[in-house]
């Protein structure tokens, strides 16, 4: 599980595609607990950074290491902006990601669905859920794998407000204390509500990294100030 002593170290991480650098040499040391929000405008490189963390993308240079604790970057769960739903029932979607289905896991799946307000829909075809319900299902499906790190790529970008509230409430009350969360968003208000620390990315460069409180009260860079004031979208 995540702990205060654990640090995730990003060393000289960069990512190029077809000669274009999408993430420039990045050095960071991230907290092993709480919620780290990657904030920045569309196309800044937030999703690239998150996919590098999950291992879905391979960096052109650099490395990601975990120091001072048991936290493993390999035991992570990723939830993308577009919910990926299998063409089967809600409950079967939950159980699909498990290596072995036990009665305890089935019970846990039902509990998680209940927490996400999907308990009455567990035998419904998941493809017929609303966008918000699909994203709630994706989050519950990620949690059931018991990941040490939860990586969320704008999970509330295209969903209705009540689903956004439910997901945020769930992350803050149930998940934050037990595992590390990386959360990508371009919504400043959402970042204010969720973040313990902020990584501000601008045109493929991490230009600010600080606690959420410091970032919003005393942004150090001109770009961050402009972003907070809504002058960069």
């Amino acid at each position, binding site marked *: 599980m995540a702990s205060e002593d654990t640090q995730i170290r990003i060393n000289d991480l960069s990512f190029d595609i077809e000669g274009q650098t999408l993430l420039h040499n990045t050095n960071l040391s991230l907290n092993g607990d709480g919620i780290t929000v990657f904030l920045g405008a569309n196309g800044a490189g937030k999703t690239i950074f998150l996919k590098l963390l*999950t*291992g*879905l993308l391979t960096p052109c240079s650099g490395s990601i290491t975990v120091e001072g604790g048991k936290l493993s970057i390999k035991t*992570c*769960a*990723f939830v*993308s902006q577009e919910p*990926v739903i*299998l*063409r*089967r029932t809600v409950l079967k979607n939950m159980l*699909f*990601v498990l290596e072995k289905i036990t009665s305890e896991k089935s019970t846990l799946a039902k509990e998680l669905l209940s927490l996400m307000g999907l308990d009455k829909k567990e035998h419904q*075809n998941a*493809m*017929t859920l609303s966008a918000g319900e699909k994203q709630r299902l994706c989050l519950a499906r990620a949690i059931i*794998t018991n990941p040490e790190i939860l990586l969320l790529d704008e999970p509330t970008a295209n969903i209705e407000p009540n689903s956004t509230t439910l997901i945020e409430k769930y992350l803050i009350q149930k998940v934050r204390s037990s595992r590390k969360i990386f959360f990508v968003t371009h919504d400043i208000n959402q970042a204010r509500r969720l973040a313990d620390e902020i990584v501000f990315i601008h045109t493929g460069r991490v230009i600010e990294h600080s606690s959420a409180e410091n970032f919003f009260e005393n942004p150090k860079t001109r770009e961050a100030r402009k972003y907070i004031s809504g002058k960069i979208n």
Partner: protein
Amino acid sequence: MNDISEAFVSSLGLILFLDAELMEIILLSFTITFYAVLISSILGIPLGAFLASTHFKFRNTVVSILFGMMGLPPVVVGLFVYLIFSRSGSLGWMGLLYSPMVMIIAQVILILPIVCCLTFQIIESLHTRYHEFFRSYRIAKLKSVIAYIVDSRFELTTVVLAGIGRSISEVGAIIIVGGNIDHITRVMTTAIALETSKGNLDLALGLGIILLTTAIILNGFILFLRGKYLKTSGSTI
């Protein structure tokens, strides 16, 4: 014109009174089609799913060859299989020439690329949506291939039906390897060809009506499945 209408009425009589010869031909046609499509599906669907979801060095070459094989001329396939299973051929010792078994083999060669390539196309589009999810959850290759097949089940049913359509209407290959032997290898298409050349139009027409009805039912079933799938999945894919 009068001959044709008489033949049509006579053919309907053969169908309605379940003429023994007609039923024997129909039964053999469906049996050969059943086994040819079954074998093609068992081999072609997993192969298509594997090719669609896996990247390896010569994948594009393999896929190109398979797509090219979709248009194999049946008579050439028939000739090829004939040469292999004829007495002087490499598998002549098996004594399969002019048997339903060799007709199934010829049909499998014709249908397998169709089933495989159509499966490939269907699952490739699903793979675009699923592969990141499977990778992020470290889903095993076999489990992911099974998931692709299960989640494409409605579309794959239409692939199987397309295979049935191709198989049941095929004549070129099976007439060469089967020999159109009465009570042994005579199927609907080969019988139609023979009976027409003999001027026995009532039996030829009767078989033609059955063949046409089968094709219409198959297409109707494809449309029904498509409608059912769109209704239950809420998807346009």
